[in-house]
Structure formats: structure tokens, C-alpha cells
């Protein structure tokens, strides 16, 4: 599927991209990113770090989900040019995280068809955990 830059409009939505997260996802990410931080691996360590529910997920994994959602949207002929976000809430065990986004602008810069989006990662309760923005390039 190729997105038509000319037909894309401000307000258009990014297809939602979801994962249920817990140790199966966190451990895999810890392994590839060598991110073995006790509060991501151990409930007691999570509580010591201030999260009563125990261990919690990596911000970087939520960031990966945003990147993946954007890449899946633009496809292999598009480019993910910029992604920024803030980690505002904890990713608790068994949260279902969904990447959402909305087109906020289009421009042609250096010959690139650039699309700017507001993005976020929301949990199953609708809580916004990760507000940010992205810029992608369409063919």
C-alpha cells in the first residue's frame, strides 16, 4: 500500500499499532538493546524505584513501537525522518499499548514530501503515556 502524499490531509489518522507488553516483550528488548536495568526485570526493584506495581517497561521499547507504526504506515518506499517523544507515564505489566497519530502538516523540503504528525502511545485505559511528534517522507 502506498500513501498518496497529495491526497493526505491534516487530521488523517495513523493506523493504530498495538502490543500487549510484559516480561516476554521487555526481556526480548532488554536482550537486543543490552538494557538489563533491575527495575525492568524485577518487581521488588520496580517498587524500590517508586512504582508500586513492580517492574515496568522501557521507554525505548515504546519508542520502537512508534518507529514501527510509522514504518508500517509509510512502507519500504517511505522514510522515517524524525521521531520525538516524552515518557510521561509508566508502562505497567500487561498494558496494551497502542501507537496513535494524526497528520498535522505537509511540506516539501529539500525535494522530500514530508508529513508531520502528532503521535502518542496510549494504554488500555486511554492513558496517554508518550506524547510526541514525527516526520515521515513519502515517495
Amino acid at each position, binding site marked *: 500500500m502506498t500513501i498518496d502524499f497529495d491526497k493526505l490531509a491534516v487530521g488523517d489518522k495513523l493506523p493504530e499499532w498495538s502490543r500487549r507488553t510484559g516480561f516476554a516483550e521487555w526481556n*526480548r528488548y532488554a536482550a537486543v538493546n*543490552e538494557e538489563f536495568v533491575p527495575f525492568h526485570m524485577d518487581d521488588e526493584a520496580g517498587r524500590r524505584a517508586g512504582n508500586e506495581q513492580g517492574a515496568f517497561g522501557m521507554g525505548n521499547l515504546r519508542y520502537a513501537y512508534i518507529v514501527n507504526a510509522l514504518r*508500517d504506515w509509510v512502507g519500504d518506499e517511505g522514510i522515517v525522518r*524524525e*521521531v520525538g517523544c*516524552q515518557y510521561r507515564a509508566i508502562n505497567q505489566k500487561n498494558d496494551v499499548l497502542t501507537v496513535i497519530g494524526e497528520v498535522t502538516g505537509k511540506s516539501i523540503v529539500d525535494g522530500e514530501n514530508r508529513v508531520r504528525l502528532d503521535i502518542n502511545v496510549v494504554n488500555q485505559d486511554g492513558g496517554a503515556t508518550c506524547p510526541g511528534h514525527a516526520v515521515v517522507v513519502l515517495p
Partner: protein
Amino acid sequence: MSNDTLTYVTEEMRAAQGEWGGIRTAPPITETDIRRWAMATYYPRQPPRIYWDADYAATTQWGGIVAPPDFNPFAWPVQRPRGGSPGFSGRRPDGKPLTGMNGGQTDTYGAPMRPGDVVAARSRLVDWWEREGRLGHTLYVRSEIEWRNQNDELVRTRMSISIRY
């Protein structure tokens, strides 16, 4: 001590502000590194072919397998670099260790990372601020990290916020 005077900012931070640190070079990227990264971040779904199928990838604009933009080639060094100056992360006046957390980042991506690439990084402290938060006195440190490949092409610029409390 009142919170008006409490600070976790160190002399090392003040001295280093704005100065690029030394260059750190990652091991060469392999197809396996890329496939595993993609499998971990897409789990439990199958990742896109661009990350693991060389024949398919050759038919795309990229001409071959590329890494996900957020791929980290610096994971798993044989020799972990010494922590440089621990004072760069802030310090409590009472000497107790600070807890660190990732506050967020903005990445701008340039040349894609490919199998065989060797990425080098340099970083600098940009600025910082402190405030009283849910976790007590909290230090936010903004850093800039720049990655270049073996052809001196800019791969990624990251502005990141580290939280210390």
C-alpha cells in the same frame, strides 16, 4: 537544606557543558543484529521483510537490508567503556546514588544503517534544569548524541532527556 538551594548539578557538568566528548565506535553491524532487533520490537508478530530478507530488500529503494531507524549498534561491546565521569549524571549532596530514568528523546535520521556499517558516536551535555516532582527533587539533563558511519555520513542525531531523582 531547603529545596531552594538543593542541587544535584556537579562541577563536572558545568565544566563539560557544550563540549563534545570522545568518539566511541560500535562493532560492525551484522544481518543477525538487525534481524534480532526487529524480531524483538515486533514480537510476537513477524517483522517486515526489509529487516531480514536480502532478496526482497534488494528490490526496494534501499537496495538491501537496512536496520530499523531506532537500532542500537552500541549494545554488547566486548569491553564496556569506563563510565567516563560519573559526575555527568548529577550527584546527591548526601552521596546516595541517584535513580536514573529515560525522560524522552528526539531523533533525526539520516543515512540508514546497513550490515557491515561501523557507527561512531560522540556526545555532549547541552543543558539541565531541576524541579520538585512526584519523585522529589528531580534533575533533568539534556544531551546531544551524534552518530556517523564509516563514510562520515550522519546517521542519527539524538536530543535526549535523562531524569535523575
